[in-house]
């Protein structure tokens, strides 16, 4: 399968800096979106460290066996977590920084997706859109009964993250697999998009502009800004084409 990618990031309309990071490489079939946790110092550093660490892990190997890609992804995400913690130890003023991560690895005819935090990945196919990732926040975890006793403090907001890189020495990322088909489009984004634009509107924008993949990230970012742009917005679009 051939993968075409396009991505963009934007500060939004309310923030003073951009704490999101993005990287994509069509030839390697690798795409990464990270959203530094706001309200803590060093969110931008954390997201940038995560992206660079994942990149480094992938660039360090010539090839990965098909059967080993998931464990490779887990190791790469662990290494990213470690690099954030190590930096925090060196610089106490940014200790505790954290980031979300969505890492897409297209290998053969499959997508391997590593996910932690509340940045999302969607599948768009035949006019329909499906959210692939589960938001790792209090609202979702409470609804699914996944919160451990004592994990919740009264007054926790539904949007508060339960899992992210940099929050502890171990991180449990979700790893998903999906068989690729020509025509599929994957959208990975920070919550600056999904907080402002509904899934139905994302699908509508893609449907209208599918023939111009390169313009899709900026169109989606524009829609988020039109909706208020309260957070940084990052969008990565990956289209699956035939051989």
């Amino acid at each position: 399968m051939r993968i075409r990618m396009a991505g963009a990031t934007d500060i939004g309309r309310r923030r003073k800096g951009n704490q999101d990071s993005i990287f994509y490489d069509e030839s390697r079939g690798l795409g990464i979106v990270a959203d530094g946790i706001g309200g803590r110092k060093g969110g931008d550093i954390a997201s940038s460290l995560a992206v660079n660490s994942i990149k480094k892990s992938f660039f360090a190997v010539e090839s990965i066996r098909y059967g080993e890609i998931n464990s490779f992804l887990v190791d790469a995400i662990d290494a990213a977590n470690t690099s954030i913690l190590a930096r925090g130890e060196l610089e106490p003023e940014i200790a505790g920084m954290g980031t979300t991560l969505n890492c897409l690895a297209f290998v053969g005819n499959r997508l391997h997706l590593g996910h932690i935090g509340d940045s999302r990945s969607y599948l768009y196919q035949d006019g329909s859109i499906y959210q692939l990732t589960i938001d790792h926040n209090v609202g979702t975890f409470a609804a699914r009964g996944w919160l451990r006793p004592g994990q919740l403090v009264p007054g926790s907001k539904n949007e508060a993250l339960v899992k992210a890189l940099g929050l502890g020495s171990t991180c449990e990322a979700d790893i998903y697999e999906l068989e690729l088909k020509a025509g599929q489009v994957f959208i990975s984004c920070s919550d600056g998009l999904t907080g402002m634009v509904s899934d139905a509107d994302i699908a509508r924008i893609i449907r209208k502009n599918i023939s111009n993949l390169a313009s899709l990230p900026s169109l989606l970012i524009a829609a988020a800004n039109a909706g208020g742009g309260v957070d940084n917005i990052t969008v990565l679009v990956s289209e699956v084409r035939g051989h």
Partner: protein
Amino acid sequence: MAASQAYLIRRDCRQFLGPMNSEEFKKGLKRLDFGLQDEISGHCGPWVILDSKEELNAKYPEIASLLGEALPLSWRETTSHARIISRHRTKGDKNHKSAAHKDAGDGFREYLQKQRNKSRAITIFFVLLIIAAGVIAAGIVLRKKDDLPPIAEVVSLSEKSDLTEFFNLMGVRVIPFASRIVKSQKNLNSWLPLFRMYAYNSTGNIDGISQKLLRGDAPAVFNHDCTVEGWKRRWKENTIQTQQFLSGKSLQKNPWTKILALDPYWVKRRPQKGWVNPNSIYEGCLMTASLAIQSLAAEASSGDSGQGTENQDNYLIVSSRLLHQLNIIHGLSSISPSEASAGEVGALGMLTCLESQTTASALGNCKTVIHHDLDTFIGEHFVLAMTQLALTQGRGRPDAQWQSLVKQASTTMSAEEIMSRLDLSPELKFVGLVQGGLDIEQAKGKIKMEFPEVKFE
């Protein structure tokens, strides 16, 4: 493929199948590509567990109806085969007339008549033979379609750490025939623990099996409907009373307060025969209550219920308490005592705190503002906590502080009615024996003799 008719399946929380249309969904279900514990999502829709009938009906009615039809359908198909075979009966040779018949004399006519009768008899014989063969074939087909998997196979799947295959197999090949298993009583005692495992890990209910049978020998005080829907209904009916209990203002006796007040160690000591994961009706009810509160919280956060944030806070508090209880029962508790009641306040915070301490002196940490009406209720839990502390110590005799605290608590206990109305006599006896001078091992031995069904470990 029409956009509104495609669905994506998330299998085992890690692999996506599809998107697929309803026909492909039916085929996938039949091939066991996925099972009732997996999740489905439609265009712009939420992820819904296939086993969650009500939510599926609300969000994806087409899939709910497919699932509803798919399971009993295989059973109905077999009877239609039998009907087709029965049409052979209409085949006959009544109107056959030969030219010889017209010209023959009486004798010859008689001869012909005999021959015809003989021929008719042969024809009838073959028709009967075909019908018999058909009936036998239909029987074989019927048997094959209804064939339950061997119990040993289901049991072995139920013991695996990943229960996907267990729920798939039960959902497709056992649950549709549950009422027949119950009626025939064949191997019912072997099937019951598996039915309970399936039910209490999902909705608390199985069509065709009465709640009475599923519950088994539950004490009268714990004889309420433990289905997820039942819990949800009662939550809505008792919101104000439950709130008063949660805030520690008054002791309200309703099924929700009873389940939240259950001492998890008391439950753990009472595994029941015929129960495996959950090990008792008490554990099963805790599991379905936990599922119900999660469902209510999800409805509240999606705005379906129109309930306020106060209710959402209550959902989190109750959910946290239920997880604490289940974690202790499942031996999963890894939180420190100081964290134990961090998310809870009032009566529940007090109970969780008492159940989490590791020394008698630390019990004093469990202070919260509770109305004095709840004193006896808390006293009861205090004795249960003392029991557990002594058992955790393992050998020898508890320290002087334990002895002194127990003396105060047991005086109150003997004077008052047991509020939970559950049988605490083994615990009270154990505490009495230790207080009377026996060491813990000796006391455990005595309790084992007197109450062999209670596991004092």
